[in-house]
């Protein structure tokens, strides 16, 4: 199977082309430059992997949460390419992609992903699993102040958790001061300086593709988390 994945939701801009078990990736921290670099990045990856857009089976994208402008840019680019090349799309959560990064790099199987939402808040969610196939979100993706996030339920035995994402980079002190962690019923290690990466989006999208979970180009829509106001 052949898949293109892209992500522009946060400070990082990345793209990946997967041909069966072979992956070609580019990843760049480039605030405010995503609109300039994303198409050339995809173009060079396709050239490197020796395939054309028409030979792809689907296009996956980081659908959020993240910066509103970045989330929308990724969705716009995906819509445009998918319409032109007549491809189905696969949206992947940036929080899930971060959990997969922790799993891929450290073999973590319990992950709390958190992305700095600014204004003193984080987007976050907890994940469990042992591989891309069974990675699942516990509860739902939420937005709240770091002091008041819902931590995973403490298990009978002390559970080892991994934290990842810009939310952890900014607010690890607030997270680690929570009583559940201080008293030791939850144990956290923290993986620094990680942003969503198209490689993880592609690896998660592969599973969705195998399960036939694909959408039409117009369904490539952003997930803002915060989309209703009181």
């Amino acid at each position: 199977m052949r898949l293109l994945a892209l992500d522009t939701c946060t400070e990082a801009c990345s793209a990946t082309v997967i041909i069966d078990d072979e992956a070609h990736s580019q990843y760049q921290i480039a605030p405010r430059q995503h609109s300039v670099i994303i198409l050339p990045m995809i173009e060079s990856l396709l050239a490197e992997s020796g395939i054309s857009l028409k030979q792809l089976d689907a296009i996956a994208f980081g659908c959020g949460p993240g910066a509103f402008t970045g989330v929308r840019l990724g969705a716009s680019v995906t819509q445009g390419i998918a319409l032109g090349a007549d491809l189905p799309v696969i949206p992947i959560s940036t929080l899930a992609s971060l959990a997969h990064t922790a799993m891929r790099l450290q073999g973590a199987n319990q992950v709390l992903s958190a992305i700095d939402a600014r204004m003193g808040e984080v987007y976050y969610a907890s994940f469990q699993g042992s591989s891309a196939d069974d990675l699942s979100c516990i509860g739902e993706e939420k937005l709240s102040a770091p002091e008041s996030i819902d931590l995973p339920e403490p298990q009978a035995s002390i559970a080892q958790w991994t934290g990842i994402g810009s939310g952890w980079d900014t607010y690890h002190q607030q997270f680690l001061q929570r009583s559940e962690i201080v008293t030791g019923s939850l144990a956290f290690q923290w993986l620094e300086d990680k942003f969503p990466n198209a490689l993880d989006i592609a690896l998660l999208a592969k599973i969705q593709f195998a399960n036939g979970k694909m959408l039409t180009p117009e369904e490539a829509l952003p997930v803002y988390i915060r989309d209703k106001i009181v």
Partner: protein
Amino acid sequence: MRVLGLETSCDETGIALYDTDNGLLAERLYSQVSLHSEFGGVVPELASRDHIRKTLPLIRQTLNEARLSIDQIDGVAYTAGPGLIGALLVGAGIGRSLAWSLGIPAVAVHHMEGHLLAPMLEAVQPTFPFVALLVSGGHTLLVYVEKVGHYQILGESVDDAVGEAFDKTAKLLGLPYPGGPELSQLAKSGRQGIYRFPRPMVNRPGLDFSYSGLKTFAMNTVKKLGDSIDAQARADIAYAFQEAAVDSLVIKCKRALKQTGLTSLVVAGGVSANDCLRGELKKLCDKMSVELYFPKLEYCTDNGAMIAYAGSLRLMDGHIEEAVIEAKPRWPLDTLS
């Protein structure tokens, strides 16, 4: 050459297909006015969120109407500015990526150039060079249009746009958003000579406009009346405001025509739908033996057709752009070539 045009610079999603041999093939327009009305003005993030939901379905409808498939288009034109950055990025992102994936050229179009060239979509067209007055909620511009791509700004508003002043004054008078058209309606029952508003900047040389003072004058007039303001007083204020706003536009058009010696005047933008403005400009142009052109009403406001048309001219010219998504919230018209 068949060109798909995308307009998403503000609160309308406009899509059109223009064929350089056969003219306009199909178009679709979706207006977000009802979405923004409860806020009393355009809300940028809401606008962007709506554009990304609407653009692709509208492209499909436009293609269906023209009985064409996506791979039968030869170029894409998208509005790259000026406008709301988030809203522009949606059209630019979709348009540029679509062209890239089809392997066809794309062109970043200046929104105001679209408006300037909109009269060329009509059966009877002005001939170059001409003077253009662009009046909308976001712009008040007098432009010397030498030919396609050659524009010289003769004058512009130094503060609020004229349409903005209409909407704000309407709000002051208790009219719902967007109040401009309702204010004109109300002005019809207003009486001449009850209030006299200043004509901003007409005593100064040059062709610039200023409308924030007019809005403040309206505010002070309403304040002075306090609780004694009634329906007739509101209508009288609406009348006096519109009279002053239109008057200053007409005076500057007259000056621009005299200064350039040109004999064609093109009026575009949302405010060009205003009856009072149309009537007064007609009188002026009759007196000066100047040809007056108004694009039809649907091309006065934002639309995809004008973008497809302006883009087609540049693409026919062999214009090539890199696969970079361009959005320029501020983009001076006179930097085009």
